[in-house]
C-alpha cells in the first residue's frame, strides 16, 4: 500500500514536479519509518532509473594499514553519485549505502539538498519515525532540571512595590524620542529582544517550562526559571529579582527597572503590536527609571557605579530631560509653570536662582491675591512666561555629549506697572521680593536682552516713561 503511495508521490514530485525529494521528506509526507522510506526510494529508483537520478549516502570505515594508538578507526559518511559508489565502496570497510535523495537530474549544486532538507521539516517533530529512540524527554513545567545556570532567586518585597510604581506611571506617555537614547539601556534592549524571541516559541510550545511570561506578576518566581543574562558590561541581569544576599542597592534598582521593563513588555505585547510596544516601553522606561532613582536615591545613595551607563546617568541629566520633555507636552499653563519651576530648580542654574525659585513657590500659590510682598504701592506682581534660549546637554545616538540651545519657556515675575525702569532702584522690601527681582535681573542681564521684548505691548506712549 505504502509502496504505491510512495511511487505515486515520487513520480509526481520528482519526475513531474522536478523537485528534489530526500528520504526524510518522503518519510514525513507519508508518515512512514525512515528506513522504510529509504527502501521505497531505492525500489522506485530501480524502476525509474532512466527518468531520475539518485544521490546515495555511503557510510563505512576508511581502510587503514596499521593500527594506531591514537586513532581506533576513521569513519566516513559521504554523499556520492551512483557512479562513484562502487569505487568508494572498495575503499571502505563495512561499507553500506542507501538512497539519500531523488532528483530529476544530476545535482550540480548540492545546496538544493539543503533547501530540501529544510523543507522536510524538523527531525524532532517526526521523532516517532526515526530509527533510534530518543534518550531525553521534553521538560514540562513541573519537572526541574539541575542546571549549571541555576541561581536561587528569592522574591523581594521591593519587587511588589516596584510593580505598583510601574502601574502608576504606565499611562504617562512621553513623545520625545531623542531623549530616549540617553536612558535607553543597552541591556534592556537585550532583554527586550530575548523577550520577543521567547514569545514565538512560547506560542508553539505550550509546556515551555522556561517561558518568561511574567504575566503572573512579580510574585511568581519558580526557582527553576532562573536565567542570569549578562548585560553588555558583564553584570548579571535577572528577569526575576536576583538574590539579595550580595546585591548592592544599585543592582537592586537595576533589577527593579528590568523587571518593570519586562512586565511592561508582557503587559503590552498582547495588546499592541511589537513595534509600538517597543516604543512604548522605551518611552516608559526612562520615566520609571526616573521614579526609581528618585525614590531609592534618597534612601541609600549607590556606592558603586557598576555599569558604565550609570556613570552618565547623572540626576541632573535625567531630571532635566524628564521635566523639560513634559513641559512641551503639557497644555495647561499652570502645570507648565510648575514644571518650568522644577526645570529651573534642577537645571544648571546658580544657587541664587534656586533659592529664589523656592521662595517663588510661595507667592506662586497666592499669586492672585497678593500685595503682601509688594514693595511698592500699587504694584502687583504677575507671574508670566516668556520664551528664552536655554542651554541643554543631551546625548546623541552615539553616546556623545551634545550641547544645544533650545527655546524654552521660563517664568518670571513682573509688576503690572512699568517694571523695567523701577527695577534698578528696587527698594529692599521683603526678602522674597528683592531676591525675586534679583532673579529677574539676573535673568535679564544674562540673556543680554531687554525685558521689553517679552513684555506685552502697552500704549506706545509708555515708552516715554513717567515724564509724560
Amino acid at each position, binding site marked *: 500500500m505504502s509502496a504505491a503511495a510512495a511511487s505515486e508521490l515520487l513520480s509526481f514530485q520528482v519526475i513531474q514536479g522536478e523537485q528534489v525529494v530526500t528520504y526524510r521528506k518522503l518519510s514525513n509526507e507519508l508518515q512512514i519509518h525512515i528506513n522504510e522510506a529509504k527502501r521505497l526510494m531505492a525500489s522506485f529508483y530501480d524502476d525509474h532509473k532512466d527518468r531520475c537520478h539518485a544521490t546515495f549516502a555511503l557510510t563505512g570505515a576508511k581502510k587503514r594499514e596499521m593500527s594506531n594508538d*591514537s586513532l*581506533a578507526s*576513521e569513519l566516513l559518511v559521504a554523499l556520492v553519485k551512483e557512479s562513484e559508489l562502487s569505487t568508494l565502496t572498495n575503499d571502505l570497510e563495512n561499507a*553500506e549505502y542507501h538512497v539519500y535523495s531523488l532528483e530529476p537530474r544530476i545535482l550540480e549544486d548540492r545546496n538544493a539538498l539543503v533547501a530540501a532538507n529544510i523543507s522536510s521539516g524538523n527531525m524532532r517533530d517526526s521523532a516517532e519515525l526515526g530509527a*533510534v529512540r530518543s*534518550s531525553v524527554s521534553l521538560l514540562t513545567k513541573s519537572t526541574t532540571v539541575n*542546571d549549571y545556570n541555576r541561581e536561587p532567586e528569592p522574591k523581594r518585597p521591593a519587587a511588589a512595590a516596584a510593580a505598583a510604581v510601574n502601574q502608576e506611571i504606565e499611562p504617562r506617555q512621553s513623545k520625545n524620542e531623542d531623549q530616549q537614547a540617553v536612558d535607553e539601556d543597552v541591556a534592556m534592549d537585550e532583554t527586550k529582544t530575548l523577550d520577543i524571541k521567547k514569545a514565538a516559541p512560547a506560542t508553539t510550545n505550550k509546556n515551555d517550562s522556561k517561558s*518568561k511570561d511574567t504575566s503572573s506578576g512579580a510574585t511568581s518566581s519558580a526557582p527553576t526559571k532562573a536565567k542570569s543574562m549578562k548585560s553588555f558590561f558583564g553584570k548579571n541581569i535577572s528577569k526575576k529579582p536576583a538574590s539579595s544576599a550580595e546585591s548592592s542597592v544599585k543592582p537592586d534598582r537595576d533589577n527593579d527597572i528590568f523587571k518593570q521593563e519586562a512586565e511592561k513588555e508582557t503587559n503590552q505585547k498582547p495588546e499592541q503590536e511589537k513595534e509600538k510596544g517597543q516604543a512604548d516601553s522605551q518611552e516608559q522606561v526612562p520615566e520609571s527609571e526616573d521614579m526609581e532613582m528618585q525614590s531609592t536615591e534618597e534612601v541609600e545613595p549607590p556606592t558603586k557605579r557598576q555599569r558604565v551607563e550609570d556613570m552618565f546617568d547623572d540626576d541632573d541629566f535625567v531630571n532635566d530631560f524628564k521635566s523639560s520633555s513634559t513641559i512641551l507636552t503639557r497644555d495647561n499653563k499652570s502645570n507648565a509653570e510648575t514644571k518650568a519651576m522644577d526645570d529651573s530648580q534642577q537645571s544648571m542654574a546658580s544657587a541664587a536662582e534656586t533659592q529664589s525659585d523656592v521662595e517663588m513657590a510661595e507667592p506662586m500659590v497666592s499669586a492672585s491675591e497678593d500685595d503682601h510682598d509688594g514693595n511698592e504701592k500699587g504694584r502687583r506682581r504677575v507671574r508670566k512666561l516668556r520664551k528664552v534660549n536655554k542651554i541643554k546637554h543631551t546625548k546623541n545616538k552615539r*553616546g556623545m555629549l551634545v550641547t544645544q540651545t533650545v527655546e524654552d519657556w521660563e517664568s518670571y515675575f513682573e509688576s503690572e506697572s512699568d517694571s523695567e525702569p523701577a527695577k534698578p532702584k528696587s527698594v529692599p522690601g521683603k526678602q522674597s521680593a528683592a531676591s525675586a527681582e534679583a532673579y529677574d535681573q539676573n535673568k535679564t542681564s544674562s540673556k543680554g536682552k531687554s525685558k521689553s521684548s517679552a513684555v506685552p505691548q502697552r500704549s506706545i506712549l509708555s515708552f516715554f516713561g513717567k515724564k509724560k
Partner: protein
Amino acid sequence: MSADTFCLERVSVAATNDITSVFRTGRRTYGQQFDELYSQRLRSLKPAAAEAAEHRWPRVQETPNVLNVEGPQATFIVGTVFVDSGNKPSTLHQVERERWVSDIHGEQYREAPDTVVFLEDESGRIRLVGSVVDKAILASGVVAAVLGVETAEGDFEVADICFARMAPQKPMPVLKEDKYVALVSGLQMTTERPITLALQLLAETLCGELGALGTMQPLAAKIAQVVLVGDTMQLPPAPLGHAEDMRVNDRTVAAKLAKQVDGFLADIAANVPVAIMPGAADPADTSLPQQPLPRSLLPQCSQYSGFSSLTNPALLQLDGLYLLGSSGQNIDDLRRYSSEPASRLAAASLGWRHIAPTAPDTLWCYPFTTHDPFVLHDTPHVYFVGNQSQFDSVVTRGPDGQSTRVVMIPRFADTNQIVLVNMRTLECSTLEISA
C-alpha cells in the same frame, strides 16, 4: 517490514548534572588585582611541586625563598615561572597604535631576543639561565621546582626542572558495553550561511536517521552524549566604537543567528543529551572561565531534559568517567610559548596540574581571590581540547598509575570531522562528513 520499523534504543548515561562547577564565577567584581590569583596558585601547587622535587632530587636542600639562594651549593627552589618577552602583548604598544587591536596573532613569545625566564615566589624573582631552561616546555604561570646553583651575577643556573606531576585520579569505571561520547567542535555557523549540508548530515547521523541498519544506526544508538566544544556560532566581529553607540550594540545579528542555531541544535537535543560549551567566537565572555551560555539563548534546546549549558573549561562526569574539556583558548595560548604539538602541550599541562597557566598573563581571565579554578586537584580520565587544526590523541601517564587520554578535536567547519570517544576503552575514532 519489521526491519523497516525497528527502533534502536539509545544508550543512556547517569546524569552529569550534579557536578558543581568550580569555574562558575557568580557575581563578579573587578576591584581586586591578580596577585591573589597567583598566590592562590602557588599555595595550591607548591607542596606538590616540592614533594616531587624531593622525590626526584633526594639529597638536595630546598631554599624556601628564591631570593635567599646563595652559595656554590646545589639547591632547588619552587616558584612560579614568568617569561618576560618583547613579543608579549603590551598595553603600551596598544596605546601607541591608533586603533586598539584585540589580539595578537602568531608571535612566539619565547623567540624574542630579549626573552628572560624568571622564577617568582612571594619574596621576589630570580632569573633562570641555562640550556635546560631553553629546551624545557615552560610557560608563564607554571609552578615549577628548579635545581641548580647561583651564578656570579645572581642568576640561577638550572640543571633540572620538575613539576607537580599529575594529580591523583579516581579509578576508571568499568563499563560493560561500548558507549560513545561525540565531541563536536567549531561548527562555526555563520550569519550568512548558518545551515550547511555537512551540518545537516551530521545532525542526521547523530540522530540515527542517516545510515543503514547494519552499522551506522547502531553506532548512533551508542552515542550517549554529544558535547559541542566551543565556537558553535561564528559572529562577525563587532565594529569598534563607543560603548553606547547603536552600531556597536546591535545585537539583532547575534539574536537571529542564535535562533537559527537553536532550531538546528534542537533536532539533536531532542534525541540525545547535548552539552554546549562556549568558545572564542560564541556570544560569551571573552575572559576565562567563560560562563555558560544562557539557556534563554537556546530556548528550544532548553526544553529537553538532556540539554545542559557548560562553562569553558568544563568538567563532566558520565557514568563515573571524568572528562575535562576546553574550547581551546588555553592551548592556543600555550602554543605561543612553545613550538611543540598541541597534544604534547595539553599533556604537559596535566603534568603541571594547571590547565591554563598563562592566565592571567597572556590569557584573559577573571581575578579570582579565593582559589585558582584552573588548578587540577584530580586528574580526569579524558582531557579534550576543541577548535584545533587537526585530530590528535595521546595517552599520558602519571607517577601513580594515572592515565589520561588527551584528545584534540578538529574544527568541524574546516575539517568536517568529529571525534567519538569510546567510554569503555577510551579509544578515539573520527567521523568525517563528506557532503
